[in-house]
């Protein structure tokens, strides 16, 4: 095994007592001493901070940068104005996903692409196939910069307290901004992977990472590991490459339009022109044989990635991600309560004939448990709290 890479926050994780794991070649915190459940709940009620410095950060510069990105990404990059970001897929020639990514336009002259850590090398090799046709270059700046996600109801107040700024970014999701903390510039995007109605990701030079991390903790934010990052994104209905994107447990490529967020990630706008797999994606838009849907367990137990899904005894697909996640309760008036619960939820990749409200069976080590296809696991439109939707 090759040496694991470490982010600039590695010493801070060790000092906080984190359990470290190999995550896509990086030595990362899976959880801190309070545990995944407590971290998940703290993020939903207060503020969680996540070291996302391992994610691949790529600069795309040069005269043809827009044309290149229009070709290799699914989003309409021409619609991106300075100060905005957008979610996109990196399509394969056959209509699946090489990766999913976020593209940021902090400055007019260069795009920053953020990709999954474990896919960074694969993405660069994929881009290299198209790059010779364009007058532009890609620079991997992953090691020079650090990223911290600051998520949850108190995220905005904490960043305001540190910067004294009146606004952190514009009000919309995917707005970008820059704040100054103790004289140091910190770039901010109103994005995240938790589904929290309030949440930011900050970008700063690698050498500033520990400094800001400690300041955030002093303001009441709590370190949150990859374990809670996964339960939060699952509850929020956000896909993860290698689970909902890529190949299914049977080894077949998952079409991009099988994934819930595809409609936000793919554009067929005229100015988009031709791009990798455009025709295949246009065909997929009309429907795919299987699709990824959120399911909630009706019976007692836990459902996990790789488990078989059946409908009336016939194979219908697989669970792609699943576990038990905690949630806070709210009273009838929508006011937050201190009481918590737990529920077993998942994503399943199943026959598209199945729809919201249908019950399927999941093969849990030989026992068939009932699960229901739901519209979503959580409401994200009532700030400041994400609110669990229970079956």
């Amino acid at each position, binding site marked *: 095994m090759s040496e694991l890479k470490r982010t600039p926050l590695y010493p801070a994780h060790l000092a906080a007592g984190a359990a470290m794991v190999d995550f896509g070649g990086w030595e990362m915190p899976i959880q801190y001493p309070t545990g995944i459940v407590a971290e998940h709940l703290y993020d939903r009620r207060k503020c969680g901070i996540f070291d996302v410095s391992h994610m691949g950060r790529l600069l795309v510069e040069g005269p043809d940068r827009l044309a290149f990105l229009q070709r290799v990404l699914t989003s309409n990059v021409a619609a991106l104005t300075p100060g905005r970001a957008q979610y996109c897929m990196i399509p394969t020639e056959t209509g699946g996903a090489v990766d999913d990514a976020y593209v940021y336009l902090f400055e007019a002259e260069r795009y920053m692409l953020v990709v999954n850590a474990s896919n960074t090398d694969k993405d660069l090799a994929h881009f290299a196939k198209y790059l010779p046709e364009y007058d532009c270059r890609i620079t991997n700046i992953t090691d020079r910069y650090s990223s911290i996600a600051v998520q949850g109801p108190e995220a905005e107040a904490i960043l305001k307290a540190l910067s004294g700024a009146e606004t952190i970014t514009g009000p919309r999701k995917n707005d970008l901004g820059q704040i100054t903390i103790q004289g140091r510039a910190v770039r901010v995007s109103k994005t995240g992977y938790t589904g929290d109605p309030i949440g930011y990701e900050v970008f700063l030079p690698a050498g500033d990472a520990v400094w800001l991390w400690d300041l955030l903790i002093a303001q009441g934010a709590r370190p949150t590991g990859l374990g809670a990052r996964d339960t939060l994104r699952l509850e929020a209905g956000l896909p993860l490459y290698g689970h909902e994107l890529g190949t299914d447990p049977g080894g077949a490529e998952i079409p991009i339009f099988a994934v819930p967020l595809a409609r936000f990630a793919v554009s067929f706008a005229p100015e988009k022109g031709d791009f990798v797999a455009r025709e295949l994606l246009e065909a997929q838009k009309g429907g795919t044989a299987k699709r990824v849907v959120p399911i909630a367990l009706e019976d007692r137990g*836990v459902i996990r990635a790789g488990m078989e899904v059946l409908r009336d005894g016939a194979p219908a697909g697989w669970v792609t991600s699943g576990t038990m996640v905690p949630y806070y309760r709210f009273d009838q008036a929508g006011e937050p309560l201190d009481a918590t619960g737990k529920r*077993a939820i998942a994503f399943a990749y199943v026959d598209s004939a199945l729809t919201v409200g249908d019950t399927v069976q999941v093969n849990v080590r030989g026992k068939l448990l009932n699960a229901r296809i739901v519209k979503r696991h959580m409401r994200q439109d009532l700030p400041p709290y994400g609110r669990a939707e229970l079956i």
Partner: protein
Amino acid sequence: MNYPIDLKYTRSHEWLRDEGDVAVVGISDYAQDALGDVVFVNLPAVGDTVIAGESFGDVESVKAVSDLISPVTGVVCQVNTALEDAPESLNEDPYGAWIIQVEDVTDSEDLMSAEDYQVYCQQEG
């Protein structure tokens, strides 16, 4: 990490307390710490036969599922059904939150003393 000296331990991190007529079974402090937050316990029923070295149920943490391995062969005479609604008791009080009680014990795994088990856990890292 806590290793009560009145208990015996398995290599798969269950503990056993010999109470004469019955053997009480749970999971160790080391086990609960390695599992992380326990969110579900799959329990056997009273009257089920358990076999030394074989699974009698499982514990699910947020991260993964782990088999519960019976230290002894016998018949389940009591099940801690409180764990169904409060699986986190296994994290909070691993030696108080027993899982099953077994009677008519006819066989046992090779069990370790607290001292040997502590050494064993330290070797596991």
